[in-house]
């Protein structure tokens, strides 16, 4: 199907990042580095109550601090507060110190309200209500296919289990924020964003300026992982402060702020039952699930699962399925999309129970997966991976390693839709042969700038370093936000289209029949004074969606300390046409490493007594460090005929599930909640008294609350690609 060249010179090869030199020398200026003439430092004042009714906010003393040039409240008059850290006001001044001093002098009159931060507590009758007008627990979304109860009665083997996953924070290293200059007629915003057009449109709306007068620029940005779309409260505040002071204002959140109010991966609680015949053919699946996306979840969001829903029974085909999912509102910061939203949660529950079933059946977990996986590419990946990984030699009876250090292996699969369309691009071919491509996309660190150069170079027969790529500016032809693994599949076809048309035009005007490669410059020279400027756009046939991937993990668990060392991860990932192998592999590494954090280290901890986040920093919220990283091996399946497919998200999904299965295989007992911390291992091995560890609460009564008598079939979003 594909129009992509069949014998490419650069596609699928290793091309160095164009912006590499700027990034290793500090020349790359991020939004947080911008210093427009006269710029002011801005900081946000946040609620110290997890729930309150704010009567008034007095900024007078703050304004009087030397160096302070402006101060604004988020909203005037009475207002509620739903979580600790909610934005109330902001100040701007000539130094960080002035702002720090001013924040201390802001006076708030408020009535604290009862609050609840633990979802299990929030579901109990009589728990404090997050919202006055709706219950904490939403009505469950129910989906039923086939005859579940009858099917279970016929199963040869039925396994069940309760699983839970933690709240994970995005923690991109560049925090959320912008440097914004609002003038009388127009506005420039240097934004740390995944969607420059969403920032432009958001600001235009708030400032009542035409969209054409607002310019959002993101030349470099320090990561987002799904949490950076639109101007955000911090963007609105910077814009308002800039308007008030007439000067550019920079508000970058602190690391502390970052843990409170700018998104997270919601928690999940899953009670799963799975049954099969004795050959391992899955017959019936039942899920009771709930989760909390913070204050924006629960009964207020009539959408049922709110942001806390997850796909189930995930990638497997089960003829009889019943799922029930609800969202619970709590007094905590709201969730946002986080690299493959919903999937790691769904994967953890399902892949864990699959391994339980395999053990009960006495079947190899890889065989069980291949048997029940409807996606052909993934079945192939299991076959390739098991060979490469040495699965047959490594997989043994759970808990059978002699000695205190036990090793084990595990496997899990993933899916992601992706796709993406709508990008426009422009190419300029100058008479001196200089080529410039412009596109209003943005580079989060995935390497899209280089992808654009590779595609253009391929078409013109030039080397990628000869292409000047300009992105990250709303003055360029529009492209969508970078999320959902859609950037490369959306942008590459537009570049292909623009450059192909540009080349045709060059050939027509110059009379050179084939203007590629060595003929390119001579053809350009014939253009006279008029450069060729050509627009292109995304079109069907060059990209697609629906990527499958599998990961194998090997771990060593010290049963005396509970310490888990992941020693190896093998990734087998399908990604359609590989555009740049070098950056694609980096993205795979990155996905695996965030997955490792989810498996073993990361968890936002909230204090039920005070409602605050207890670990709003990197000493206590542990990101994976360089010493935690296993040997990661990546196998990419190149399938040019499928066109370009994004891989940012699928690679983050199965890591934690594979690690959890490997841990269970090593120690012979399953840990049912993420992250798998040493205390949970020691408790599972009866090395510490039961109940001595956090996060292992009795969940059964909570699931009972999710039950609803009405039993209306819901239209829960199906995450799986069509």
């Amino acid at each position, binding site marked *: 199907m594909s129009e992509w060249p069949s014998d490419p010179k650069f596609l699928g090869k290793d091309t160095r*990042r164009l912006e590499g030199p700027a990034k290793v020398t500090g020349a790359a200026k991020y939004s947080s580095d911008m210093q427009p003439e006269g710029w002011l430092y801005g900081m946000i004042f946040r609620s110290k109550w997890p729930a309150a009714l704010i009567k008034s906010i007095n900024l007078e003393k703050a304004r009087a601090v030397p160096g302070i040039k402006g101060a604004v409240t988020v909203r005037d008059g009475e207002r509620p507060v739903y979580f600790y850290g909610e934005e109330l006001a902001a100040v701007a001044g000539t130094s960080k110190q002035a702002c720090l001093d001013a924040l201390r002098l802001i006076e708030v009159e408020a009535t604290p309200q009862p609050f609840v931060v633990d979802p299990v507590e929030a579901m109990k009758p009589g728990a404090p209500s997050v919202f006055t007008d709706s219950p904490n627990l939403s009505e469950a979304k129910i989906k039923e296919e086939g005859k579940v109860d009858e099917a279970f009665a016929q199963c040869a083997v039925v396994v069940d289990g309760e699983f839970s996953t933690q709240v994970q924070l995005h923690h991109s290293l560049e925090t959320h924020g912008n440097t914004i200059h609002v003038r009388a007629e127009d506005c420039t915003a240097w934004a740390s964003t995944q969607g420059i057009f969403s920032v432009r449109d958001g600001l235009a709306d708030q400032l009542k300026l035409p969209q054409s007068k607002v310019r959002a620029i993101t030349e470099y940005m320090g990561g987002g992982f799904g949490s950076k779309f639109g101007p955000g409260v911090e963007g609105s505040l910077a814009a308002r402060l800039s308007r008030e002071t007439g000067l550019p204002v920079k508000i970058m959140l602190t690391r502390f702020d970052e843990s409170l109010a700018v998104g997270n991966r919601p928690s999940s609680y899953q009670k799963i039952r799975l049954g099969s015949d004795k050959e391992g053919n899955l017959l019936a699946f039942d899920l009771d699930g709930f989760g909390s996306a913070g204050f924006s979840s629960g009964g207020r969001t009539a959408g049922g699962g709110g942001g806390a829903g997850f796909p189930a029974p995930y990638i497997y085909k089960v003829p009889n399925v019943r799922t029930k999912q609800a969202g619970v509102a709590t007094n905590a910061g709201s969730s946002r999309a986080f690299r493959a939203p919903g999937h790691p949660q769904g994967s953890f529950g399902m892949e864990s129970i699959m391994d339980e079933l395999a053990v009960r059946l006495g079947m190899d977990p890889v065989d069980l997966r291949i048997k029940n996986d409807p996606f052909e590419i993934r079945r192939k990946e299991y076959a390739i991976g098991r060979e490469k990984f040495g699965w047959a030699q490594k997989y043994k009876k759970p808990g059978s390693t002699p000695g205190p250090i036990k090793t084990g292996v595990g496997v899990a699969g993933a899916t992601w839709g992706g796709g993406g369309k709508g990008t426009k691009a422009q190419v300029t071919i100058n008479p001196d042969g200089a080529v410039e491509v412009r596109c209003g996309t943005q580079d989060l660190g995935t390497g899209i700038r280089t992808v654009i150069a590779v595609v253009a170079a391929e078409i013109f027969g030039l080397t990628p370093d000869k292409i000047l790529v300009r992105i990250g500016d709303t003055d360029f032809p529009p492209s969508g936000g970078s999320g959902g693994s859609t950037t490369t599949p959306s942008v590459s076809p537009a570049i292909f289209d623009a450059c192909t048309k540009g080349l045709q035009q060059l050939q027509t005007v110059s009379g050179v029949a084939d203007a590629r490669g060595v003929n390119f410059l001579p053809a350009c020279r014939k253009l006279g004074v008029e450069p060729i400027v050509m627009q292109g756009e995304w079109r069907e046939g060059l990209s697609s969606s629906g990527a499958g991937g599998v990961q194998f993990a090997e771990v060593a668990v010290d049963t005396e300390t509970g310490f888990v060392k992941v020693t190896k991860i093998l990734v087998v990932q399908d990604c359609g046409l590989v555009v740049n192998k070098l950056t694609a592999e*980096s993205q795979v590494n990155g996905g695996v490493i965030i997955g490792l954090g989810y498996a073993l280290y990361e968890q936002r901890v909230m204090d039920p007594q005070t409602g605050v986040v207890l670990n709003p920093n990197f000493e206590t919220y542990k990101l994976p460090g360089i010493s935690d990283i296993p040997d990661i091996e990546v196998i*990419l399946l190149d399938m040019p005929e499928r066109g370009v497919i994004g891989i940012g998200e699928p690679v983050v999904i199965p890591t934690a599930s594979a690690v959890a299965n490997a841990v269970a295989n090593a120690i012979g007992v399953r840990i049912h909640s993420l992250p798998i911390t040493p205390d949970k291992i020691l408790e599972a091995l009866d090395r510490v008294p039961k109940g001595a560890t956090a996060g292992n609460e009795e969940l059964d009564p909570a699931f009972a609350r999710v039950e609803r008598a009405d039993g209306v079939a819901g239209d829960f979003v199906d995450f799986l690609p069509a």
Partner: protein
Amino acid sequence: MAQELNKHNAEKIQGPDAIPVQLTINGKAQAFQLEPRVTLLDALRNHSTQTGAKEVCDRATCGACTVLLDGVPVYACMLLAIEAQGREITTVEGLAPDGKLTKVQEEFIACDGLQCGYCTPGFVLTVSALLAKNPKPSETDVRKACSGNLCRCGSYPRVVEAALKAAGVATASKCEVLTNV
């Protein structure tokens, strides 16, 4: 006696208002007016144009603010600017003053030891300092040296590769592309 002591102490008090501060950044002396509580990182990022050092945690846990102080990597967020007076401060901008990249910088690009790049200045300086001290490090040496630097994009495997390559130690690529499966 007490009076004398008080007088002596009073003379040493600087601030709280801004005072003149002299810093030698990348070989150039620069004059600042800073409150004594301003950190070196704050001075660099908000009072000079050297924004290469990044603020990520502002509390000694991530290494993004790493600079070299007389050749030794330190967290600029954990040092007051006034304490850095009289020392040689090297930021990432100072590694290749003539525009010619160092071996370490080149290998970070060649091995793709970066994604968003926000942690990169810190890693580049940490690795540069390691190689200055230990020109032939093992993989473990690199991991140890970089254990004070965080990367959320997960560039670690390739940071290790870049460091070893820059030291002339061979490494193998861990990526394979299979066609026609």
